[in-house]
């Protein structure tokens, strides 16, 4: 790779990343309206306060992975008493696909498992301190189908204590792949139950880690500064006792009830153009294990409106009796003129007619321009309604034509004028001012009475802009100063 190419990349990145002054001002202004800080040493962040209650309830209802009964995790302010790690008595942890022995006076600190479109999130921790993977599931209804919110794992290891965790987290929207195992500097090649691993087990270190071949999992041990040698010896004994069992997390077997139509989702589509890259094929994501998901598949369909897929027109196909627990998979399809344009596969199970755990496991669609705008295909194409709730043509909106490369824009006609949602500034030369993604309503703005999917249209006496409010967020859409089109 030539230096010239790197220079070109740097110049282009600077160009692409150049921030608009108004945007920066708007963001700086957000600081002034930040909510009061929560006090305490560690606080989960959730975007909507009410989610806190839901998440707490979810975490409390987490399924237990193994047969060992977990004790409540200690709070950071009340660490457990330091045990003696020298006891010879052992307990066995039986997880899904693996097991190991650990000193009986350690505790099972954490057992956590979640799977969704972004992959698997699993944590098992034993020891004498505490471990928090830092992930929270955000259930529907939310704006994050399959959403999981993660922060840094939090370890609390008391002096003389030890925590050993086996975990995998969603890696920035996906799972960190480990197709091959490269032994990095500072690591040494080793085996964990016959599997190749790269390990850092320097006796002088307070953190040991094993990375495993072909697995995204990490086994990590952290030690308190006291009693380290004893604890390190105990951890090595745990690793030596590690046993993988058939059908484990590493090599997930296809779900036994997966129907043929759940395979090759892309092949089933009848797109005229490219296929959107959304999620993976069924099988690359395991069905939910229970404890998460929704009681029926339907809530997921209600939370996909931020993705360029139809809001309406989904049909369950084939019509399977998921309510009775006879089917673990459901497919929803969306057709245009009899041709399949989108498909969503959900997996889950239902117990006693409703207590199911459903989640999206497969998702494929053609691009938005292949759907019928009259059916309200995307949030930007959805019809606008007047104050009485009737669909109106006094406000009309549609996504910019993709064949001209304008699909990032939304065109809204109101009072005979054209307004543009133009996040990329494609039409900056013919706009009354920049589009602002987050701003405040001006004092003289008035609600027009028109709304669409929770978005409300505001206008001022000056017709240069309209404001679109969604919840607490306000966008400013500029007026196009001249008419133009795409041939």
């Amino acid at each position, binding site marked *: 790779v030539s230096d010239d190419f790197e220079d070109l990349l740097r110049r*282009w990145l600077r160009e692409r990343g150049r921030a608009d002054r108004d945007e920066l001002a708007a*963001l700086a202004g957000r600081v*002034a309206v930040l909510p009061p800080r929560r006090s305490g040493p560690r606080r989960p962040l959730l975007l909507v306060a009410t989610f806190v209650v839901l998440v707490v309830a979810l975490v409390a209802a987490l399924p237990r992975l193994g047969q060992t009964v977990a004790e409540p995790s200690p709070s950071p302010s009340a660490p457990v008493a330091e045990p003696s790690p020298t006891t010879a008595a052992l307990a066995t942890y039986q997880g899904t696909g693996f097991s190991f022995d650990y000193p009986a006076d350690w505790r099972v600190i954490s057992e956590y498992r979640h799977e969704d479109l972004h992959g698997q999130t699993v944590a098992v921790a034993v020891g004498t301190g505490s471990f928090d993977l830092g992930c929270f599931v955000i259930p529907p209804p939310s704006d994050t189908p399959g959403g999981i919110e993660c922060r840094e794992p939090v370890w609390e290891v008391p002096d003389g204590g030890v925590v050993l965790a086996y975990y995998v987290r969603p890696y920035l*929207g996906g799972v960190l792949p480990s197709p091959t195992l490269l032994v990095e500097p500072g690591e040494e090649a080793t085996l964990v139950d016959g599997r190749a691993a790269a390990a850092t087990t320097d006796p002088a270190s307070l953190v040991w880690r094993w990375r495993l071949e072909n697995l995204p999992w990490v086994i990590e041990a952290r030690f308190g500064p006291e009693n380290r040698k004893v604890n390190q010896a105990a951890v090595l004994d745990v690793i030596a006792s590690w046993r993988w069992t058939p059908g484990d997390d590493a090599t997930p077997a296809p779900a036994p009830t997966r129907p043929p139509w759940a395979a090759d989702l892309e092949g089933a589509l009848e797109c005229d153009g490219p296929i959107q890259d959304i999620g993976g094929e069924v099988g690359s994501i395991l069905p939910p294990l229970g404890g998460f998901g929704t009681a029926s598949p339907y809530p997921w369909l209600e939370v996909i409106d931020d993705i360029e897929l139809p809001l309406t027109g989904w049909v369950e196909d084939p019509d399977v009796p998921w309510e009775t627990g006879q089917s673990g998979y459901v497919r929803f399809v969306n057709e245009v003129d009899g041709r399949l344009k989108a498909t969503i596969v959900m997996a889950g199970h239902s117990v006693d007619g409703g207590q199911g755990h459903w989640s999206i496991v497969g998702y494929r669609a053609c691009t938005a321009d292949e759907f019928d705008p009259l059916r309200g295909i995307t949030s930007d194409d959805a019809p606008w309604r007047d104050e009485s709730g009737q669909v109106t043509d006094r406000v009309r909106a549609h996504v910019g034509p993709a064949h001209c490369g304008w699909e990032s824009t939304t065109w809204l006609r109101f009072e005979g004028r054209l307004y543009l949602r133009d996040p990329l500034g494609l039409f900056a030369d013919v706009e009354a001012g920049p589009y602002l993604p987050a701003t405040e309503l001006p004092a003289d703005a008035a609600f027009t009475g028109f709304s669409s999917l929770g978005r409300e249209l505001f206008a001022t006496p000056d017709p240069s802009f309209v404001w679109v409010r969604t919840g607490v967020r306000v966008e400013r859409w500029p007026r196009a100063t001249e008419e133009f089109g795409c041939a």
Partner: protein
Amino acid sequence: MEAVLDSTARPTAAPLVEAARRGDRDAFGALVEPELPFALGAARILTRSSADAADAVQEALLSAWHGLDQLRDPDAFGAWFRRHVVRAAMRIAGRRGRVVELDLATPDPTADVDRALERRTLARAFDRLDTDDRLVLTLHHYWGLPVAETAHHLGIPEGTVKSRVHYAMQRLRAAYDAEERS
């Protein structure tokens, strides 16, 4: 003899961080303001959308504000805040799960046509990369983070950063060549 102060040394951010921890929004604003241009820029590169980028930075502001107690070294606030930005941007990018064309290279008729085409080709090639490649290139070539800091940022060894940058550049070059051919 009095010590000579290094006039180029940056003042410590500790007082501002302490004030922000006590709930002083102005102090927090003073901490984040210098970071915002590059934060927004990186978020735009990673999410490929101005609106998503603004969302990501707002999320980062909120998470950093509430997470100030987790900041161990006040003078490392910038790097710490950037991690919030990257996490938020990658989460949003992953959630969107679709490619949004960000063709900012709308040719300026007064500009050199070859250069404009070069940038447009690069934009398309960059958008063909997966999120991990975009991330490591953004950190290294846009933020200009040294390998060690990139490694710290991503929680991976330095050697892995070097190999990721290397392979990401290879893939970008290949994508660029493919775009040129097409």
